């Protein structure tokens, strides 16, 4: 027998949902900005940086890409305090997200940099530009333009992955859902609503990223 679904029991908790949703949005936006910055630095190190920085970055990228996000999160939140680095739930969640997106975007942006024609770099050099100026003014924007769709997908994947931060009690959307279902015992309904909210977030984020792409990259 199928039990009757009852979404009415969720209504009293709408503000809990709202707070969780807001947290997830803020966490996503801030960690995206920081993660892309880290990824840009990583991509620079891999292509324009000194050898040692490139090697170090490569190790970082491989470690992150080949371990689950939840283990990274636990390592940062539970493991680091053993070394004397104590972090709040929210800070640990933020750092884990940044470190994770940083690794993936390093690889993506690096691919974008390698797709920039060598002739453009030579043209920059011929204009007496330094390596840094070439990276900053000639390479970076076209590189990101080259891989913007992949970068956007990765940002959405990381946003969805953020559901896991509820496991260290960072108060995100999933944490809110867990809390509500522990009160009203309507687990299925609660998670359906939460899943829908994530879906809307993903759709909204995709639209936002597309809009940003349109605004910053030249048409034609």
């Amino acid at each position, binding site marked *: 027998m199928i039990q009757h679904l009852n979404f009415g029991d969720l209504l009293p908790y709408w503000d809990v949902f709202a707070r969780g949703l807001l947290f997830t949005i803020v966490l996503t936006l801030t960690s995206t900005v920081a993660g892309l910055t880290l990824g840009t630095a990583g991509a620079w190190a891999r292509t324009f940086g000194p050898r040692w920085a490139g090697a170090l970055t490569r190790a970082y990228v491989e470690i992150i890409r080949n371990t689950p996000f939840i283990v990274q999160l636990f390592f940062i939140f539970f493991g680091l305090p053993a070394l004397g680095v104590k972090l709040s739930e929210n800070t640990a969640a933020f750092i884990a997200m940044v470190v994770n997106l940083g690794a993936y975007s390093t690889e993506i942006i690096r691919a974008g940099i390698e797709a920039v024609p060598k002739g*453009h770099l030579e*043209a920059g050099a*011929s*204009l*007496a*530009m330094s390596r840094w100026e070439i990276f900053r003014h000639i390479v970076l924007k076209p590189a990101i333009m080259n891989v913007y769709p992949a970068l956007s997908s990765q940002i959405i994947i990381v946003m969805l992955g953020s559901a896991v931060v509820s496991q260290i009690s960072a108060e995100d959307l999933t944490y809110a859902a867990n809390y509500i279902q522990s009160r009203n015992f309507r687990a299925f309904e609660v998670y359906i609503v939460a899943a829908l909210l994530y879906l809307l977030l993903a759709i909204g984020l995709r639209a936002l990223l597309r809009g940003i792409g349109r605004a910053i990259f030249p048409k034609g």
Partner: protein
Amino acid sequence: MSLVSIRDVRKSYGAQEVLKGVSLDTGRGDVVAIIGRSGSGKSTLLRCINGLETYQSGSITVDGMAVGDGKTDLRTLRRHVGMVFQQFNLFPHLTAGENIMLAPTVVVKEQKGEARAVAESLLEKVGLAGKFDAYPSQLSGGQQQRVAIARALAMRPTVLLCDEITSALDPELVNEVLKVVERLASEGMTLILVTHEMRFARDVGTKLVFMHQGRVHEEGPPKALFGQPATPELAQFIGVQP
């Protein structure tokens, strides 16, 4: 004293020697046209002059600055040596005007307004007055190449290197670019250009250099060389009986 002086330059890629002792003098205001078969080392020579390639022995000086001795800062050198490429190499994310303004603002730290005025006048000079805000993808090949020339000129180079700058163009677009170069020559700009446009080399060049298998095989006044090549290789290359 010559502006660009190349002395016995040798350059190899691995075991393959591409430049086998090249010497060449270019005076101020000279228009040197380098011709020769594919693979004879023309591009390599040109790229050694502004330090895009390194060479193993010999010496190159530009306006008294030694190239590739490890002491002269390449950036200082390149502020005086402009280069235009076969593939234009315009920066696709910048408009024509921004392409021209980039180096003056970033490298020379010119004021934006000043750089913009220069860029506008240069665009006018190459016949593209209205194209300041056009992106490279919105321009024809000939227009792109003229922007690239303007971009190099914005650094006020003492010598301009051109490597087959019309080879990637549709035939009907070649002339608009050559006209710009011709005008530069008539204004006294020092030019070293690799070209396959024989007529242009003869009419505009003050000196013709024929490269063959990594060496300067023959050099002299263009009209004389074209009229009476001294070596069978040049004769064959330009298609006349010696």
